[in-house]
């Protein structure tokens, strides 16, 4: 805490930054990913309803379609980014200790990346005929 070098008040220094220290970025990113997810999710729900009870071969053929594969990949990346933002908000609301807060925030990122990597790899494997 510098005493005299900063002319701004303590309130002025932190205003707009929030608990995650990144201002309105979180809010805006959650809105943009959320907007995209409205359309992406409707597509995926339609796809899954149409694949209801489908055989192994039919499911793989549908997932190997380039357009389906691309939309699913974008949905997964967008969805995981969106949910990571949401879970970050939940953690910042309920985790009061500094240690537990940072531990949970790191686990949140690990979980999102892991689910995304596994799903994306599986989709690419099917798309490239693996």
């Amino acid at each position: 805490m510098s005493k005299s070098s900063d002319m701004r008040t303590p309130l002025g220094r932190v205003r707009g930054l929030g608990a995650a220290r990144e201002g309105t970025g979180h809010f805006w990113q959650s809105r943009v990913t959320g907007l995209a997810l409205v359309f992406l999710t409707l597509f995926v729900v339609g796809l899954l309803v149409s694949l209801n009870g489908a055989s192994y071969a039919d499911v793989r053929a549908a997932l190997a379609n380039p357009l389906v594969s691309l939309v699913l990949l974008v949905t997964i990346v967008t969805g995981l980014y969106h949910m990571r933002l949401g879970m970050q908000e939940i953690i910042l609301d309920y985790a009061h200790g500094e240690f537990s807060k940072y531990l949970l925030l790191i686990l949140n990122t690990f979980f999102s990346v892991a689910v995304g990597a596994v799903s994306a790899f599986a989709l690419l494997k099917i798309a490239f005929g693996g």
Partner: protein
Amino acid sequence: MSQPATRAKPRPLSPHVMHYKMLPTMLMSGIHRVSGAALYFGTLLVAWWVTAAAGPEDYFNFVAGVYGSWFGQLVLFGFTWALIVHMLGGIRHFIWDTGAMLEKHTATKLAWATLFGSIIITVAIWAVIFWARGAA
């Protein structure tokens, strides 16, 4: 006149949530958060399914069997509702972001619309699923 580096006393907290009368907007706020958290872990079901599709046929059939069991269908029904109620809740937030429909009674009607709309859409999706299954 410098500020102390640490707070001298704890800041006042708002009363605990249990002290408030439950209102529709409050209920839907809670459902939005809980459904979001459920969807967060629900992504594991999606990852499991696409992984199974990328693997051998026997394993895919096993996973499809789990999802096709009565318990699997119940979980997927819940997943669908969480998805739809969270989506409608998100759209409700988009409306509010423009400054519209924030008035008390309007916000209450919008909260009920989110709840009933999500139930109707979820049941409609599953009606299509069962209808398609019967037709196949």
